C-alpha cells in the first residue's frame, strides 16, 4: 500500500526516504504504523509519538488527507488506504534568517 508523505522537519527526510511515498506492509496498516515506520527509519530523530503516552508529541502535527490526527474518530488507529496523504511536521520554524 502506497502512502504519500509530506514532511516538514528540521531533519532532512530525503536522506531516509528517497521518494515522497512510503510502501506500507500489512493488510490494514494504521496511521500509528506509518508514524512508527518514520520514527524507526529516522533513527528516532523524528519523535512524532511520545514514547510515554503513545500520543502525538506536542512539538509535531500530523495530518491525514489534510485532517488533524486529533480530529480523526479513530485517532492514530485510523486505517490507511492506498493513495492516502499523510503530512507530518514540526509545529514551528522560528528563524527569521
Amino acid at each position, binding site marked *: 500500500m502506497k502512502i504519500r508523505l*509530506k*514532511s*516538514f*522537519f*528540521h531533519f*532532512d*527526510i*530525503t536522506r531516509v526516504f528517497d521518494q*515522497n511515498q512510503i510502501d506500507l506492509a500489512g493488510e490494514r496498516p494504521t496511521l500509528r504504523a506509518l508514524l512508527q515506520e518514520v520514527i524507526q527509519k529516522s533513527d528516532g530523530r523524528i519523535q512524532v509519538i511520545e514514547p510515554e503516552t503513545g500520543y502525538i508529541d506536542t*512539538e509535531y*502535527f500530523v*495530518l491525514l488527507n*489534510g485532517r*488533524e490526527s486529533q480530529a480523526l474518530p479513530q485517532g492514530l488507529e485510523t486505517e490507511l488506504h492506498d493513495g492516502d496523504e499523510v*503530512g507530518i*511536521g*514540526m*509545529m*514551528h*520554524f*522560528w*528563524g*527569521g*534568517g
Partner: protein
Amino acid sequence: MLTRDDLERYDRQIRYEGFGEEGQQKLKSSHVIVAGAGGIGCPASMYLACTGVGRITIIDSELVELSNLNRQVLHWDEDIGQKKAVSAARKLRSLNPSIRVVPIAAQITETNARDIINGASVVVDAMDNFETRAILNRVCVAEGIPFIHGGVWGLCGQVTTIIPGKTPCLACLYPQKPEEQTPFPVFGVAPAMVAVIQATEAIKIIAGFGRLLTGQMLYVNLATMDFCLREVARKPDCEVCGSRGNK
C-alpha cells in the same frame, strides 16, 4: 494621486484585474513595517518597495556580518560592519526612489513597540526570536494591525496572517516559548520564499483583493517540495487576544 511615473513603473501590475489604479493608490498611501532586515526582511522589503508601498519602515539593531551574506540579499560585501537597517534602506531607496523608506537601527522592546508601529497598515514579522515576535503580536492585537508571521529553519518555513479579533494570534498558536537554536542552519532560498509570500499577503491586505492565509498556517519544505495548509484556531483563553487578554 498616482503620477505619470507611477503609472509607467507599476503598469504591469495595474493591469492585474481587480487591482488597477485604485489598488496602486492604496499601496501608495500605505505604511508597512518590516520588523527585521535579515533573511526574511530583505526580500520582503524589496518586493514591497518595488510594488510601490508608499512608506516602509525597516527595523534592525544589528550590524552586517560576513555570515549574513548567503541570504540577506540587501547587504553586500561592502556593507559589512554597517547598520543593517541603514544598509537595507539605502538599497530600497535606490530600487524605488519614489517611495519613502525609514530605517530604525534599534531593538524592538515593550517600551518602543507601540510608537514604532503606530498607524501602520501592516506589520511583517521578519524577526528571528520568540521574545520580539511576542511583543509585536501583543501590540498588533492591541492596535488592530494585521501581522504577517513568517519563520524558517533550514529549507523549511511557515507563514500565517493574523487579523486581530478575527484569526488566531501568535500566542494562540504558541502560548509558550518554543525551543530555539542559534545559529540555526538556513539556505537563503527558504527565507526568500517565506518573505515573498508575506509580501504578497501584505499587498493583498492593503489593496483588498485575493484570499489570505488567515486561520491557516502554510508550511513549506523546499528539500522535498512539500507544501501544506494547516487550519489553526483561536484559543478562547488566549492571554493576548482571548478572554485573559487586555483586549
